[in-house]
C-alpha cells in the first residue's frame, strides 16, 4: 500500500471515530432508556470500525 492510500484510510478511520465519539457524547446527555443502546450499537460500532480500520491500515502498510 502506498502512502497516499494509507493517508486516505487514516482519514476515513478518523471520520468514523469522530462520528462515533460525537454519538457517544450526545448519548451521555440523553436521559432515555435508548441512550445506552445508541451508545453501544451506534457509537461503539462507529468507534470500533474506525479503530479496526486504522489498525488494519498500519498493519497492511
Amino acid at each position, binding site marked *: 500500500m502506498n*502512502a497516499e492510500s*494509507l*493517508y486516505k484510510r*487514516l*482519514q476515513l*478511520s*478518523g*471520520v468514523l*471515530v*469522530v462520528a*462515533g*465519539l*460525537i454519538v*457517544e*457524547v450526545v*448519548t*451521555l*446527555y440523553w*436521559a*432515555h*432508556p*435508548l*441512550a*445506552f*443502546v445508541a*451508545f*453501544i450499537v451506534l*457509537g*461503539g460500532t462507529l*468507534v470500533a470500525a*474506525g*479503530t479496526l480500520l*486504522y*489498525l488494519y491500515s*498500519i498493519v497492511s502498510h
Partner: protein
Amino acid sequence: MTLLDAGIVALALTTIALILLVVLRPGLTAERGGKMLAFIALFISPVAATWVGTTSHIEHSKTTSFCLSCHEMTPYGRSLRIADGDYLPAGHFQNNRLRREEACYTCHTTYTMFGGVRAKMQGMQHVFVHYLGTIPEKIELYNPYSNRECLHCHEGARSFEDLEDHADIREEIASGDTSCIECHDVVHDVENLGELEMWEGRTE
C-alpha cells in the same frame, strides 16, 4: 453532569482535536512522533473514551430516575411515597435505608458474582419488550424474591439480629425456607395506590 461525564467529554473533545490534526495533516504520520500521535488519537483515546462511557451509562442505569423513565414503572415509583412505613419499599425509601437515587436497583439487583450483569441484561430485555414486545398487564418478578437480597444489608444489623421474631427462625431465613416476604408482605401494592395517602416530602 457528573465528574465522570465531564471527564469523558473532555477526553472525547481532546481525541477529536488530535484526530482532526492527523486527518488534516496525514503527512505527520510519516515521522515516528506522528505515528505515536495517530496511535493515541485513533486507538488508545477512542477505546478509553468508549470504556469510560460504558461505565458511566451502567452507573446511570442504576438510578431511580432511569428505572422510572419507562412509564410502566410510574406506579412503582409512586409507591415509594406511600405514607406508611409498613410498606416495604416506601419504608426503605423514605427513611434512607438505601440510597434514594438507587432505590430500585438496590433491592432488585441480584447480589451474586454476575448479578449486576444479569440485571443489565434483563434491563436490555425490558427495553426490547417496551418498544417491540407486548407489555404484560401485571408486572411480576422473574423469580420469587430471594432472602439473599434482604440479608445483603440486614445481616449483622442490630435491628435485624436482636429481634426475637428473627432469632426463632434464623436458620430458616438463612436457608431461604422462610421468605422475608412471608412476614413483610406489604410491598408495592400498586393496585391500591389511589386509595393511599402519599408522603410528599423532599427526596432530592
